[in-house]
């Protein structure tokens, strides 16, 4: 029987299900033992994980950069806020609607973006990120969207079955964590299958992929839709956790932080997306703690995280032109070559991206898109 269960574990779906269940168990323990403040931070990390994971699939596997994911989050947050305030929909329906509405927006953006690449794409999505929050202040929409102050969202009420004393923060953390685990589970399955493979093929060589019968433009649109849907869910969760949807919550800096998170975590890596999101939540906390203990001014403390993200973005790109993940693999390869070689050097760096067959499921998914940036050597 033990052989049977090992074979079963090779199945991607089973493995990912086990991972998701384990993650839920760990998060349950974490949220029930942590205080309200930590719970809130966990909730923030969870919704950021959704957005970062979506972006890392688009940029890491699809090769399409998006500086507009903060704006996608805004779409999700406002959709959720409007539905809660005016329609009083149940939680799951609200989040599904936020995801769906943002996916629709993503389809429009994706149709445009599929034709663009490199700096043009970055510039267009940058305009999207800066322009969209301005809609909230547009005169005819002010009554609907609440202008600069945004919309106050009534906090989600924990179900009565959990007891009257159940803390709101823990409930928010549960909702957000469930969303994050679900997103990671779906994305992991999606990117390990045919979709992820074809997406990587389109990224690495558009012409070869087209010759092989892939419709690269359509693939990219689908990738943008999936990615935007994740960001929309993240936005909906943000509205529930922050109990607010306001233009100030979605500045350009948010989109740039998401980019920083995917680079720090390793492009295309879902595990890296979790790390990236954790860094986005805990670096500001750490910075303000460090600033208050060492007596730094408020200006320095509030801008320290941004400075760190920016420096890391530059350093990682200059030091590891193939991404942090690729850099680590190069480093590992160099170390292995230093050691007495047992036999021929196997697995050269950058070789992890060959097409895998559907049943060869023994590869950890976070190796999928590593080095993606280095491979688009075209000008």
């Amino acid at each position, binding site marked *: 029987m033990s052989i049977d269960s090992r074979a079963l574990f090779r199945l991607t779906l089973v493995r990912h299900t086990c991972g998701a269940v384990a993650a839920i168990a760990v998060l349950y323990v974490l949220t029930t033992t942590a205080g309200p403040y930590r719970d809130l931070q966990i909730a923030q990390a969870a919704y950021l994980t959704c957005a970062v994971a979506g972006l890392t699939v688009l940029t890491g596997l699809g090769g399409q950069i998006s500086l507009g994911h903060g704006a996608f989050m805004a779409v999700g947050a406002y959709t959720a806020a409007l539905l809660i305030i005016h329609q009083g929909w149940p939680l799951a329906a609200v989040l599904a609607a936020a995801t769906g509405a943002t996916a629709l927006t993503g389809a429009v953006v994706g149709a*445009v973006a599929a034709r663009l690449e490199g700096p043009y794409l*970055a510039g*267009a999505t*940058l305009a999207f990120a800066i322009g969209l929050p301005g809609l909230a202040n547009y005169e005819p929409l002010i009554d609907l969207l609440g202008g600069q102050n945004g919309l106050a969202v009534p906090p989600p009420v924990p179900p009565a079955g959990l007891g009257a004393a159940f803390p709101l923060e823990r409930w928010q953390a549960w909702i957000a964590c469930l969303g994050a685990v679900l997103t990671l589970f779906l994305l992991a399955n999606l990117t390990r299958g045919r979709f992820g493979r074809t997406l990587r093929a389109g990224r690495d060589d558009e012409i070869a992929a087209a010759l092989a019968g892939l419709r690269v433009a359509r693939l990219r649109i689908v990738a943008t839709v999936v990615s935007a849907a994740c960001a929309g869910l993240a936005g909906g969760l943000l509205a529930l956790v922050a109990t607010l949807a306001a233009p100030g919550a979605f500045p350009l800096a948010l989109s*740039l932080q998401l*980019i920083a998170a995917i680079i720090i975590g390793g492009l295309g890596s879902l595990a890296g997306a979790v790390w990236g999101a954790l860094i986005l939540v805990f670096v500001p906390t750490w910075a303000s703690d460090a600033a208050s203990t060492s007596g730094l001014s408020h*200006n*320095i403390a509030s801008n320290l995280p941004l400075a760190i993200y*920016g420096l890391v973005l530059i350093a990682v790109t200059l030091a590891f032109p193939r991404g942090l993940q690729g850099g680590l693999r190069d480093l590992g390869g160099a170390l292995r070559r230093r050691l007495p070689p047992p036999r021929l050097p196997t697995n050269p760096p950058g070789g992890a991206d060959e097409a895998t067959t559907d049943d060869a499921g023994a590869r950890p998914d976070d190796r999928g898109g590593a080095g993606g940036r280095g491979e688009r050597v075209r000008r």
Partner: protein
Amino acid sequence: MVRFINLTLAGITSGAVFAAVALALVLIWRATRVVNFAQGAMLMITTFIAWSVIDAGGSYWLALGAALASGLVLGAVVERVVVRPVENKPHLNAVIVTLGLFVVLQAAAGMIWGDTPHSYPPAFTIRGLSVAGTWLLLSPFDLFVIGAVAAVMVALTLLFVRTDLGLKLRAAAFAPEIARLQGVRVGRMLTLGWALAALVGSLAGVLVAPSVFVGPTQFDAMLVFGFTAAVIGGLDSPAGAVVGGLLLGCALSYVSGYVSSDLVTMGALAALITVLMVRPNGLFAASGGRRV
């Protein structure tokens, strides 16, 4: 009709500033095939330096000189330290490095000068001129803005077309290998190109500062407008950048005047998308193959 004329005049003024930012982007794109997403932050820093000079009691002109000089230095330093390693690398690397620089500069400005925007004085009065009894949306300061940008354009054109240095700059950008064979110090020329571009950008920052105020995030939209103007003109053509800037300035002025000033950035996005969909090489470029 008066309203239309006024909006056009306001559009030309803001268009002149967009043209300067677009020109900064185009100069860098031509030389190094990098879109400098840090341009907005770079001109923010130099404008803050100018603001500090004024805050310390310096005159407007001293502040302008300080901004231009610091722009020149900043551009050169940025090219040598940060951009040189990603030249001739995949596009995404350059995009991410310039975005990282953007974030770092914005954070640095917030640390040094704080996040609250400061007002910036204009060089001349911003009271509109009166012609035949009607007030025009054109003040002496607006004329100064247009004149300053035009003067820089002329100076740059003369530099590029008439001087030996300009020829070297163009050669280094156009065919680096051949230029190097002919004895041109290509690396030095690229640094100089970035410095010149940053100089033009810093001028735009000082000129637009009275209307947008000086703060770490106040110039974000300028980057979008400059990029849009540059794309309208084809990203490769300095003349196109100027025309693109003026066209965009007028178009956005109409959006702001007839629809809503909150939709200006969305208007720029619409213009950008339209141009990219219809004429990806810009309105003025001869249609050519896509660079692969």
